[in-house]
């Protein structure tokens, strides 16, 4: 009995380094190394109200730690700029500035992306419980909202990527609608 227990413990000790090789902390370190860059994106939104998904595409650029620009080219040209907590959206002649502090829904959305891109574990864990699967080359990080207010809107956010690069973010809303954002890094010389 005791032997068996010791054996288990031994196995556990053996297993530890293996899991320590890639955990949330390690992923965050990898992500935080990424100081910014550009990517092409395609986003599909599956909305129950609509008979078919809304598709948009364009370019994204990120500058660590808190500046994110998303230029949509299709269906309509639109620029979204996230600078600290001010989100400004410019399309045609309209310009909208939103203070995210008053928009928990938008803030949750923004923090999931921003926190992941910058590898800011504290920011992510403020709103979400983190679950990691896969390895450093192909990981999937699941964010489950911990705050009642956010979980009323977002059921789950699934981020996947490789090394310090985020490749896709899937966003499942409480009403069953979901959106999938795929990113393809543009190599900049």
């Amino acid at each position, binding site marked *: 009995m005791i032997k068996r227990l010791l054996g288990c413990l031994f196995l556990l000790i053996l297993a530890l380094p293996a899991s320590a090789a890639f955990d949330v902390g390690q992923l965050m370190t990898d992500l935080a190394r990424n100081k910014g860059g550009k990517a092409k994106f395609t*986003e599909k*939104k599956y*909305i129950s*109200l*609509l*008979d*078919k998904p*809304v*598709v*948009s595409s364009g370019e994204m650029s990120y500058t660590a730690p808190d500046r994110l620009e*998303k230029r*949509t080219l299709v*269906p*309509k040209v*639109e620029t*979204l700029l996230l600078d*600290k*907590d*001010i*989100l*400004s*959206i410019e*399309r045609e*002649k*309209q*310009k*909208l*500035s*939103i*203070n*995210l*502090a*008053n*928009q*928990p*829904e*938008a803030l949750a*959305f923004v923090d999931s992306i921003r926190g992941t891109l910058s590898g800011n574990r504290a920011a992510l864990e403020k709103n979400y419980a983190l679950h990691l699967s896969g390895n450093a080359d192909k990981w999937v990080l699941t964010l489950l909202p911990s705050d009642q207010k956010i979980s009323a809107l977002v059921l789950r956010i699934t981020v996947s990527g490789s090394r310090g690069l985020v490749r896709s973010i899937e966003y499942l809303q409480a009403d069953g*609608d979901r959106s999938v954002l795929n990113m393809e890094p543009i190599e900049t010389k």
Partner: protein
Amino acid sequence: MSAAARAFLIWLLAMLAGAIVVWNSHFSADMSFFLPGRPSAAQQVLVDQLKEGVVTRLLMVAIAGGDAAQRAAASRQLRGRLEKLPEFVAIQNGQAGSLDADRDFLFRHRYLLSPAVKPERFTVDGLRASIANSVDLLASPAGMMIKPLLPRDPTGEMIELLSGLNAGAQPNTQEGVWASRDGQRAMLLIQSAALGSDTDAQEQAIATIRSQFAESAQYAGFSDARIVISGPGVFAVTSRETIKSEVSKLSSISTLAIIAVLFFVYRSARLLSLGLLPVVSGALAGIVAVSLAYGTVFGITVGFGSALIGEAVDYSIYYFVQSGRLGAAEWRARFWPTIRLGVLTSVCGFAALLFSGFPGLAQLGLYSLSGVLTAALVTRFILPALAGNDHPVRDLSHLAPPLKQGIRVLQGLRWPVILLTAAALTVLVIDRHQLWHPNLSALSTVSAEDSATDMALRADIGAPDSRYMAVITAPDREAALQAAERAGQQLDALVAKGIIGGYDSPARFLPSQATQAARRASLPASDELAARLQLAQADSPLAANKLAPFLDEVAKAKEQGAITRETLNGTSLALAVDSLLMQRPNGWSVLLPLRPPAGVKGVDIEPVRAKLAGSGALFIDMKFEFDRLYNDYLDEATLLSLAGFAAIVALLAVTLRSPRRLGAVLLPLLLAVILVIAGVHLAGEQLHLMHLIGMLLIVAVGSNYALFFDRAGKEHRLDAPTLASMAIANLTTAIGFGTLALSSVPVLHAVGITVGPGAVLALLLAACFSEREGE
């Protein structure tokens, strides 16, 4: 009844009447001191804004200390407490939920508020385009917010409304409430119910904020909490405090110093009280005259009293010291004409200020004029009767030899003085472009420190500085709103061209009834709309059958009553409308604040002016108007000073009847002016219009001393009592004006720093250029 008793009785009655007037006077320490008495149309906007504008009711609050969570808790606490109080109409701290009422109002009335609501928007094509646009918008992150509204608002009227609003530069947020840029302070923007011009109410409101904050901090267990409050109300209260404390401080200093001098001279309590009689009468008469003429006495005017005391006491000094051995009748014959001429030159100087369009200056003029005149008349007609012929002043003849010695020394310094003045004049000519302070802030009682605090809070909170405005007047509310809408169309074109960044209008939240009716008429009947919707959405991913709520909403909007001012109650939009749409005694006025394009400091004025030319809207650049106001004051003060100087020269020319004597009286005065102004400039002070007035007063007040030398020259002797009385009178005047130089109120300081030294220099230079004995 003896002559003395009768004189005293008359004086006493006059004093009592005066005291009653003063008792019932209204004193004020607000901005009106500086605001134009006869404003132009553009200046009227400035005046209205400063007295009643919504900006003057805004108080900016910063909470410092503790950590972000503690500050946020205190901010929420404070907002919760102040919201319950009637003294505050709006408390914004950025906390979520505070804008729900506004959003509900906008959504409920979107079909009457949205500028996009026109008949063509509800045609098949219009519906197809606007709904397709909303579907596209779902692709954007903003789509997250509009999705729940889509079935009820597929044409996107709410988005239309929100995008027209000024999101502007929003403050930072931390822990769900506004924070400063550096994140070290929580910020609130509070609007008091009281007008900015109601200083008592503002003081009360500020005190309430402080006490409620102390309780909030205590409640939140936040021990090192600090609060900073700024805004026009704070300035008004602080300025009033400053002026109040200065009035009592300056008057006390000046009175005590002058009493000390008089006591040294008279060594008699009876003479001392008699000597102060004209002064007290003068000071009282000054306030009575101002109160009767203007209805309101400015605090700064009363503050000027300490200088008046210094000058008014001169006459009784002349009387007591000079009439000691001569008796009253002989004094009247020998000395009174000279003193009378001195009084008249002073009166000329002060009278010039009466014609100023700058109310503060006109008041100072009337106050001083009445004061000096009363003091002189009391000395001439009441004092001799009261004092009788029995007022042995201590023999001051021992003062004469050193004084005469001093005069001889001064007379030897004529060339050095002339050279020094030439040097001073050269400095002034060389530095002529850096002499003057360029704007009205030179006269402001607000300290540099308070001003910096205000700037910092303003930047942190992104508070509007309404520099540019279009102003419209109309006979009634409806006409005013229609005019605002017409001007708005012109301004929209300017926004599209990027000439202005945006503008605010009361018609955004309270459209004119005509516009509301037109929008309501654009909405089709339910069956018609349903049919068009089917056609419009045939190929759209958003099927018409999912839009039943939209049909209901439009039907509801067609039935809904019009939006009135009352509809806005309970939202912060009510405040926005009230601040931009005001009822005036003679109709309604609308303000349309304009914003420069993003990232640009100013607005290119000409295209805006041209665009608004036909619309009946007046375009105003507040900063420009302020600068122009100051320049008008300065030009006017220059003219008045020259006119006053001319009047004094004319008076002296007529009285003295000799160019040589006139020159001899004027030369020391002009030299004194040049030396003092150069001195002030070299001491690093920028000159403003009160220094200019100070120059005039150097001539008006200083001439008294020069005239005695002129008289002595005529008689070919300068007797000891005359000499002593001049020295003492000059000392009291210098004390009176010099005390003002200690003031932190720029208006008073500038007069003090010029006239104090100027009066002394006038006497010294008059002695320097006086006729040598035996010449």
